[in-house]
């Protein structure tokens, strides 16, 4: 049988295959770290990683990602999460915080691909992650700092 694997756990549920991953995470699995803000791939709040690439879960039906490795904010290893919390706290890179799990996932994908990102790399990778609180300057700083600290090779729990 085809399987949906979220954070290394196999999900056995009878779910309409057209359902976007975002709503499976939030409503079926009760994992609310991944956020809804536009539902059309326009804002990045719902970003998760599939095989280390950022995708917008609000426009990704689960039938397209069967047997792929899905990582949500909840699936990050504890030590990585702690580093992120510390870096974001030091740079004050959150106001309301609603966009932040999405920002973090996009930032991780960037750093996996480019461990030493430049301003242009950050602009390119993060342009789809909107922050209505408008604290981009801080998010940029947090990304530089996280890259400087470094992230583990394997960012998946277990």
């Amino acid at each position: 049988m085809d399987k949906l694997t979220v954070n290394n756990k196999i999900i056995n549920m009878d779910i309409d295959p057209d359902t976007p991953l975002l709503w499976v995470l939030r409503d079926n699995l009760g994992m609310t770290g991944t956020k809804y803000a536009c539902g059309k791939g326009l804002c990045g709040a719902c970003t998760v990683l599939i095989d280390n690439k950022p995708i917008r879960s609000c426009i990704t039906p689960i039938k397209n990602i069967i047997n792929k490795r899905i990582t949500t904010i909840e699936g990050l290893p504890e030590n990585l999460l702690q580093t992120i919390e510390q870096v974001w706290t030091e740079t004050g890179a959150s106001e309301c915080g609603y966009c932040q799990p999405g920002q973090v996932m996009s930032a991780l994908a960037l750093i996996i691909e480019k461990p030493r990102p430049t301003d242009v790399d950050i602009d390119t990778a993060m342009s789809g992650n909107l922050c209505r609180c408008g604290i981009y300057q801080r998010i940029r700083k947090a990304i530089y700092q996280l890259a400087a600290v470094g992230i583990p090779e394997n960012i998946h729990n277990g």
Partner: protein
Amino acid sequence: MVKGNFKVSRRGFLKLGSVSVAGMVIGICLPSNTYSKSRSEISAFGFSPNVWLVIEENDQVSLFLGKSEMGQGVITALPMLVAEELEVDLARVRVKMATSDSRYGNQYTGGSRSIRENWLVLRKAGAAGRLMLIAAAAEIWSVSPDTCYAEHGVVVHRQSQQRLRYGELVAIAIKQPVPDTIPLKPPEDFRIIGKHAARLDIPDKVSGRAKFGMDIILPGMLIATIAHPPIFGGKVKSYDAKRALSVKGVRHVMTIASGVVVVADGYWQARQGLKRLQIQWYPGEYPETNTASMFNKYVELAENPGEVVHEKGTQSAVEAGTTNEIKAAYQLPYQNHTTMETMNCTAHVHDNGCDIWAPTQHPEGARNAAADYVYGKIQKTLEKVYSRFTGNIYPNIVVHKTYLGCGFGRRLEHDFVIEAVQVSKKLGVPIKLIWSREEDMQHGHYRPGTYNKLHAVLDKKGLPLNWVHQIVGPVRGLAVDGAANIPYSIPYHRVESTVLKTGIPIGSWRSTGGSLNTFVIESFIDEIAAVKNVDPYHFRKKLLNSKPRHMNVLTAVAKAARWGKVLPENNFQGIALYEARNSIVAQVAEISVSGKGKIKIHKVVCAIDCGTVVNHEIVKSQLEGGIIFGLSAAVKHEITFKSGHVVESNFDDFPIVSMPEAPKIEVVFVSVERAPGGVGEVAVPPVAPAIANAIFAATGKRIRKLPMSLQAIV
């Protein structure tokens, strides 16, 4: 015991609704403010504290306070005020989100007021606690309290260096009398206020653990979504419920006062159901509303004088040879808040009342609005009488606060709350009602769009003698707000208002009228400066002789931005000034124009005098965010109308500034020792005029209509 508006009580136990803690409880009566609907709720019962500070035996200090955390940082900044005077480390103090219980006092979170309201009272509460703990230790040691002091949550006897932790003293401290006079620290002794303190809410937020309204999950909960009539004030005519119910997971379809609701096991299913309904609507009262014709009508109405809402000074006549005159007209669009988290609310109406989980800026208002739907007429009357008798308003309707994914004034409204309550009342189960982004965009409470006619008479030197500003908009209050607030000395100033009813819902939008009228005022003053070719910064200074604080802020921003110094080739600057919420802000925008006339915004420098700064990083962050918010509205988005409905629907046609588009922002503090001013809104209004003025400096083209295009400006 009563010092002005400040009163303190103490007890050994706090029991309010679901909260019950033992320890030293200090109840403080926070004065209500002009916005508060609950003024009578507080004053009718004499001394009834509404902020609670609890010191437990394990040394934990909790602050039960009603303000909502929407990104402005109250969860961090308010404990700093308490910790400073109580002499505990900040890490020991936590804000506990209060419920809507009226005994928690005024919870309205808007108008950049949270620090301003709490600046004195929370410090006095902390100081009262410290004095009582010291008195307790002195009693134990049989020494005079004067020989003791407190530091880091411990009372120390100076001579013997004996020490007792606050937790150890709690039981005796509650028996101490509340001090009559409560002296506060002089600012030079501050060790927390104005010093670095990291935001306390960030770890939970970046890790996805923080619970926003959207994230509430209750046992047995169903998820609902709604379609509102596309034309404001419209009504449901018909729909095909069967088509929706055939979607797997869809449970109910119903009509409520404000639209059609589909209830399902999950949001996606509810959405699919809603799409299939084929709803037909009766139009509302203004089915013709159309942006172009509305603004044409504004222009037409401006032909006749409006009602005078502000007039000061004596008018000079225009005289040939001695005076000059200048006229201009500015047009500002409607705007939506577009909070990152769309409107949503979880409600459970049950036999004992109702529990509500809502990202709201106004929990008491939400509670009162919900009562209309929770109770029938007779029961509501009974509840009201009971409330009056006990001083506790609708105690069985409890609004639990969640984190707010932005506020900006949108969450002062209760439309989304009463909808969830109605659905839960009908079905008897917990309901989480979620608005799609499209509904959120098209059923907002918009910042009004206005048309502004300006007329100034200038003396021979080009200084303004008369300033007449006529504003046409859909309402009076929010359209004229801030227009009378010109810092410059001008001998005659008049503001007129003309209202065109449109049926469009209007609401408070971060900085209220400031974002409208500052664009007008700060653009027009630039136009006046240009008449005699005077540098706009120096021109403003000439008119600020009686305003030293404004002068300081303006000078500070010019200095930091290197105004008048050599800039990189093709770079130009514009300046703007603004005052509100007891803060003064000035900004310089630096832009460049490419050969093809494309504008790039490089940098915004922002100087602020906001009095004492409690937490510099939070203030900076609010100013940075305010500038980006103002920038988005200046150059990217607007709300328009066609055939009675809103055209824009999502971030594609209502785009906001993204990371690559965000200019660099520099913040400069002009430090002044006085009570803090508000900072949540004040950075928004000056951005648009600063950029427009820079574009004028670069191209000679005056921007008089927002949003402005950054393409091919020449």
